[in-house]
């Protein structure tokens, strides 16, 4: 099978995560933007989650509903297909990105239109739909504010919820002023960098397009197997515009986005908004079942590597993800590296476990992603469906190919730790050589000593002290205590 495409070509793919991150961390504007944004959203999330006395109960229910669904995914997909079809919709199946893009392009071509409006969707980002449509002569217009900023700026998304999180208001103003005219109605004269003014500019820029475009493309947050209902959560109303006004609606949705029953929404409509935008409820949620209010409706069910992830006993929990991005917002590594360093439309902790599973670990970048974490566990703590991201990271590390020098070092350490006498000998050797350890080390260990001192090696290990004294305190050589 060819490598699963995840919609992110470019420089970030050519190097490993450490090299990408090292570049990003030196960009002080990026650091400032990310720090400000992630800290704002972190606080909002914590406040609205703390309001619910039954948050943990909802979280466990959410986790179990998803696990049960994944276990019975074949059955629920068939049920969904039947329900959507019965409600006048058309269901298509796509094994990979190419197949999904081909289906969508053919559907658009059949309408005779050459322009489509899009609701923000991770699945269509993942398959690179906009580029595929462009190759067929169809222009896809992003309508979510952040996606618009990314599209106008000829940029790549760096966050699941807020793709332009790496941009601040001044940069956004500049992009609007310089680029809006090339895509349609230009930005108002004397545009300021007040977020209100920028939102107003986006409203004016897209208004005419919403009223006239005949085809819309969306993803979905949830699909209900029992009823055939699709659910989209959004804030701005661009989603409602796309879902309501065009004559044809095409929704591209990953197969794991399914929930068995209508009732299950009562759990996820509490978990997702609070985890995602840190609101009690997002401004707009739309649900529709099949062809609605005279609209033609197509559902494209997307695999693109998901069934491969499903086959992994540990890794399959990543398919519970509801794309809330709470793990990104709380991650100290993401906050400093930014989204582009991950070289995938799925950045941050969830990206570090999802990308290598979907795409495999053939490239240096994909092999380095499971290591893009200090295993601090903050992601697991905030995950609304309790994905144990550190567990999956460690599991993927065991499956990755390791560098030879590291393998030898780990084997040597293992050999020493297998026998306490060997450990004691190594400690004594270290104690004797303690004065010869330089403050700055060569080779890979310089990664430590470039910014940090090494601890002093003590003359006597704990076990030698114990042997000498029988653990009688008051006989120390006074090299413990504060350092």
């Amino acid at each position: 099978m060819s490598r699963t495409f995840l919609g992110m070509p470019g420089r970030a793919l050519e190097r490993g995560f450490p090299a990408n991150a090292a570049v990003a961390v030196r960009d002080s504007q990026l650091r400032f933007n990310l720090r400000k944004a992630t800290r704002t959203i972190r606080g909002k999330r914590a406040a609205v989650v703390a309001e619910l006395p039954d948050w943990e109960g909802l979280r466990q229910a959410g986790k179990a509903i998803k696990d049960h669904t994944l276990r019975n995914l074949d059955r629920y997909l068939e049920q969904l297909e039947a329900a959507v079809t019965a409600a006048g919709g058309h269901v298509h199946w796509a094994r990979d990105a190419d197949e999904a893009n081909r289906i969508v392009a053919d559907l658009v071509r059949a309408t005779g239109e050459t322009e489509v409006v899009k609701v923000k969707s991770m699945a269509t980002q993942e398959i690179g739909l906009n580029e595929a449509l462009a190759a067929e002569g169809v222009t896809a217009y992003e309508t979510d504010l952040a996606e618009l900023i990314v599209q106008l700026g000829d940029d790549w998304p760096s966050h699941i919820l807020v793709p332009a999180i790496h941009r601040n208001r001044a940069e956004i103003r500049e992009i609007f002023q310089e680029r809006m005219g090339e895509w349609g109605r230009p930005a108002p004269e004397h545009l300021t960098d007040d977020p209100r003014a920028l939102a107003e500019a986006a409203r004016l820029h897209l208004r005419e397009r919403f009223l006239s475009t005949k085809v819309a493309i969306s993803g979905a947050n949830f699909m209900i197997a029992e009823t055939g209902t699709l659910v989209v959560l959004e804030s701005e109303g661009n989603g409602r515009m796309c879902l309501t006004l065009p004559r044809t609606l095409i929704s591209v949705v990953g197969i794991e986005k399914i929930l068995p029953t209508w009732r299950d929404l009562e759990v996820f409509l509490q978990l997702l908004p609070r985890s995602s935008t840190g609101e009690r409820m997002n401004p707009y949620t739309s649900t529709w079942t099949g062809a609605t209010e005279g609209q033609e409706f197509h559902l494209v069910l997307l695999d693109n590597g998901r069934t491969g992830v499903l086959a992994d006993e540990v890794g399959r929990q990543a398919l519970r993800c509801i794309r809330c991005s709470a793990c990104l917002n709380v991650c100290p590594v993401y906050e400093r590296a930014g989204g582009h360093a991950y070289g995938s439309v799925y950045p941050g902790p969830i990206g570090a476990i999802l990308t290598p599973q979907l795409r495999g670990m053939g490239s240096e970048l994909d092999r380095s992603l499971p290591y893009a974490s200090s295993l601090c566990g903050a992601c697991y703590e905030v995950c609304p469906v309790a994905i144990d991201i550190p567990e999956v990271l460690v599991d993927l590390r065991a499956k990755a190919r390791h560098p030879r020098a590291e393998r030898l070092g780990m084997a040597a350490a293992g050999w020493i730790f297998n026998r306490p006498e060997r450990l004691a000998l190594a400690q004594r050797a270290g104690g004797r050589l303690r004065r010869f350890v330089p403050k700055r080390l060569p080779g890979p260990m310089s990664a430590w000593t470039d910014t940090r001192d090494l601890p002093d090696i003590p003359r006597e290990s704990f076990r030698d002290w114990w042997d000498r004294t029988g653990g009688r305190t008051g006989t120390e050589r006074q090299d413990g205590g504060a350092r």
Partner: protein
Amino acid sequence: MRVALFITCVNDTLFPGTGKATVTLLRRLGVDVAFPRAQTCCGQMHVNTGYREEGVRLARHFAEVFGGYDAVVVPSGSCGAMVREQYPRLAPAATGEVVPKVYELSEFLIDVLGVTDVGAYFPHRVTYHPTCHSLRGLHLGDRPLRLLRNVRGLELVPLPGAEECCGFGGTFAVKNPAISAAMCADKVGNVMATGAEVLCAADNSCLMHIGGTLTRQKTGVKIMHLAEILAATEAAEVTATIERSAP
């Protein structure tokens, strides 16, 4: 009750003072702690770097060494979390019996011995970093803080951004040095903002990381393991130790 000390390879090799302090403290509280000589390493570095087989071997070894004790005390949040979180996945049959008997030091003091005032005296301004594995792995909660608040003479100052990782993460620090150093720089900035003389934690590996930056930047802030502060009883002796190890 037969109590064993699991010193951990990092403490054994680099921070024997923490082990001595743990022994001093436990004996002062009437616990006759044993040190099984065959112990080596919990296997965390191997497992977390992707060398699971070594980790399984070390987990089995741990179970053999500590199987006969009623309680195993570990002065390390991350090694404690390794045993409690990862052993059940790595070697469930071999370690099933020993895992529930493993206690991080503050858990042992508060949950098993039922003490929060250990009779310590440490007249210094101290801030506490609740390392990730202590906080989110073992869920120590405020146990270490309760112990520190009962230390006579000690002024405990809150650490801003306390719950954020220092950027150590074992081999993360050398595999992603730029990000690790940036995280540590922020942690050090927060430590400096407290005006504390001493940074305390229940984990020497994180302290080694933050301390390495504190000394490189010649900040004058000392690092001390929780056990060392709790073991201190005479002001003069501890103050002398601090002065002697100043850079």
